[in-house]
């Protein structure tokens, strides 16, 4: 399990320095795949006899379907349609973003191991990976300017959050998980549509163009 969560972390870190959408998506697929396995694995280890296979399996399958298959498919399709194979514009250099990513991992380690977090049922073995993934997802959105990258960043964040939920609570209520996956799916769909529109109008997927509205 540690290995998987390590993959989980490495993929998100790797993403920080990629400047190619397709590559990011593949990394995302890898991350989601590890998440979906973790979603079964973590409860199995931590709950022992109380482990509810049905519950966890459904969650994992959902994760797999939505995050490994559907969302990357949507993003890749959109990306194909946009035919933008050029490099993703970034707010900072790749090296710097990687550096900050590493710093964020360190920060999440500090958060995770600090007294305040550890005394209040806020951490478990995997929450470190989850928190750093959330942070990196957020930072990914900040550092990469392309529209699709922001979608990917959101998914990375969500992945982190899901890992966090699994690591803390061994899985959320089913109806809730259904809801969140549905929302995420529709959300990414809508974002994809919008990316399409924006590309149609602005002929670019750089968020730099989206700064008309201010004040």
């Amino acid at each position, binding site marked *: 399990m540690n290995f998987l969560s390590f993959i989980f972390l490495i993929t998100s870190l790797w993403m920080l320095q990629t400047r190619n959408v397709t590559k990011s998506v593949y990394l995302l697929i890898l991350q989601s795949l590890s998440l979906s396995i973790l979603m079964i694995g973590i409860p199995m280890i931590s709950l022992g006899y109380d482990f509810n296979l049905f519950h966890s399996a459904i969650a994992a399958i959902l994760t797999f379907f939505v995050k490994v298959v559907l969302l990357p498919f949507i993003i890749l399709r959109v990306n194909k349609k946009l035919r933008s194979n050029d490099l993703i514009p970034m707010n900072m250099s790749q090296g710097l973003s990687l550096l900050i990513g590493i710093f964020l991992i360190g920060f999440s380690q500090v958060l995770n191991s600090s007294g*305040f977090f550890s005394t209040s049922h806020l951490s478990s073995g995997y929450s470190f990976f989850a928190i750093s993934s959330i942070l990196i997802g957020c930072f990914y959105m*900040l550092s990469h*300017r392309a529209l699709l990258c922001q979608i990917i960043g959101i998914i990375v964040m969500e992945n982190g959050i899901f890992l966090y939920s699994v690591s803390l609570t061994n899985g959320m209520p089913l109806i809730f998980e259904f809801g969140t996956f549905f929302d995420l799916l529709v959300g990414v769909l809508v974002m994809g549509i919008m990316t399409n529109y924006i590309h149609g109008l602005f002929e670019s997927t750089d968020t730099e163009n989206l*700064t*008309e509205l*201010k004040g």
Partner: protein
Amino acid sequence: MIDLGFIFFYLSVGFYILGAIVPLAFSKNKSLSLKIGSYFGLTASAFGFISGIFMFLLPNPILFKLLVIAPNIELQFYFDKLCAFFLLILSAINFLIMIYSLEYMKSYLNDNIAKFSFFYNLFICSMSILFLVSNSITFLIFWELMSILSYFLVTFEYRHQHVRKAGFFYIFMTHFGTVFIISGLLYWGTFSNGLNFDALKMAAMHMSMFSKSIIFLCFLIGFGTKAGIVPLHIWLPMAHPSAPSNVSAMMSSVMIKTAIYGIFRFVIDMLGVGPIWWGSIILFIGVASSLIGVLYALMEHDIKKLLAYHSVENIGIIFMGIGVGTIFSSMSLYTFAAIAYCASLFHVLNHAVFKSLLFLSAGSISKIIGTRDMEHYGGLIKNMPKTALSFLIGSLAISAIPPLNGFASEYQIYISMLNLSYFSHSYWKLFAILSPVALILTGALAAACFVKAFSVSFLALPRSSEAKNAKEPNLMIIAPEAILAFSCILLGLLASNILFYISKILVQIDSNFNVVYFQTTNLLFFIIFGLFFCLSIIFGKIFGLFEIRKVPTWGCGINLNSKMEYTAASFSQPIRRTYSFFLRPNRKITLNPAKPLDILFSEDLKPPFTTYLYSPIRKFILNFSIKMRFLQSGYVHFYLAYIFITLVVLLLWYR
């Protein structure tokens, strides 16, 4: 009797509302809607007047609970003599103004008359209810309504840029004043159970002096803004001239008095006696307002602006009376306090009368000539003798010329201030003795101002063709002015009786405020002066002094024309120079070398409060706001970062 007073009051409110709504139905036929609105207003104010009389005659105050609007907000009426007094002033003045508007508003027939009737009648209605309600929030509701409705009246001629600006200034200032009133009332409300006035009054008995003082200062600033004390007066000379004259008459003579009502109701009636510095502040503000108001009035040649500045002056005089009264009641000298309060209430009445008279006549003149600039008037006394006479009486009254009403109330204020100087100690004596001196100075300057106003507009040669061909307006306009002029004289002569009635108001507020006897000299002066005047006239008749030949004025050999006359600006020039340390006149002489005779001289005043107080604040706030706009820079990354940072900051804060 109780029921009658109520019934008439409801009737008057009902008629005001009808007068507001019915004209809207006839908005196509403008003259009809004007008539309907005015007649309803007329009836309503007549009813209001009657109910005011009934209320005034009631021996004890009555609380009448109508309904509970919302938790702690009750619509309840409290009828006592103080409300009745203000209601009487409002209704009487409004009655006359409505007669006047019937004719005067005909010149606005191109505009939306129905809208005017709507706002005007509702404005009066909200004011008359304002005097009676006895719950903080209801009071504030009607207070705000009054402000907003009058805003729409001020901006009635909104097609002019300066009117819009004036309207904005007005609503801005008055709203910021309201902030303080609200704060005072609500803060007070936290000490009591409920926001009704009786609860507040009960609470005031066991509040600490510190919180009382905070509330007092709030009321002073809040009501002071409405009243137009210096330096919060700047909206007054902008808003009053911009409105149609009947509205400005109403605003100047009654609306700014709602602030005086507020001070009487909240500070004197409900908050009770405070430390001496309360009264001293009011007195000081009064002195400053009256002096500065009259100085700026002197510099004006826009007749309505001039009158507006005189409102500042007169509010200052009223404040002087209140201040002296408050000091006296802090010193537990209740009789003297009562005299001072009576004087200021009497001045409220007098100012309402003569200021509305002046505004009405100024309005009719400026409509006839087509401008408010006095430099285009001149010689109107020949064509408009009746208007001239009423304006003259108004000017005499406002300059506190003895047998008229202005003197009667100022006299009481003088003797209160002199009494104050007799009773106060050490350094206060100097302060107390200098305040009547300031009032004397104010009186002298006011006299100068009205000599200027009257003589420039009515005497000597006409300065424009419109002034030459001016005609006396018809009876509907003259009659209210004549009634007001007559009441100026009557109020002056009957001063002691009226003061006696006014003292009843104060007795009702606090039984300590008992005045047995008012010394007035108006009647005495009238008798002596009248005697001598009649004797000298008889003497003149006997010796044939009235056989007068009129000869051309000597103009140093040149035929005299109106350009050679003294203008309003030149009349006030010596005073402008005398007080140049304060007025800061900015003189500019432009010489044209090509044409040696072409000399342009201009002189304007730097408005100190706007330049040094309001503009910097405005600029600071706007600059700050513009700088703040960088927060919304348009970059989605920044926005994401905000969310992120907020989260982190909160988590760190929690640790």
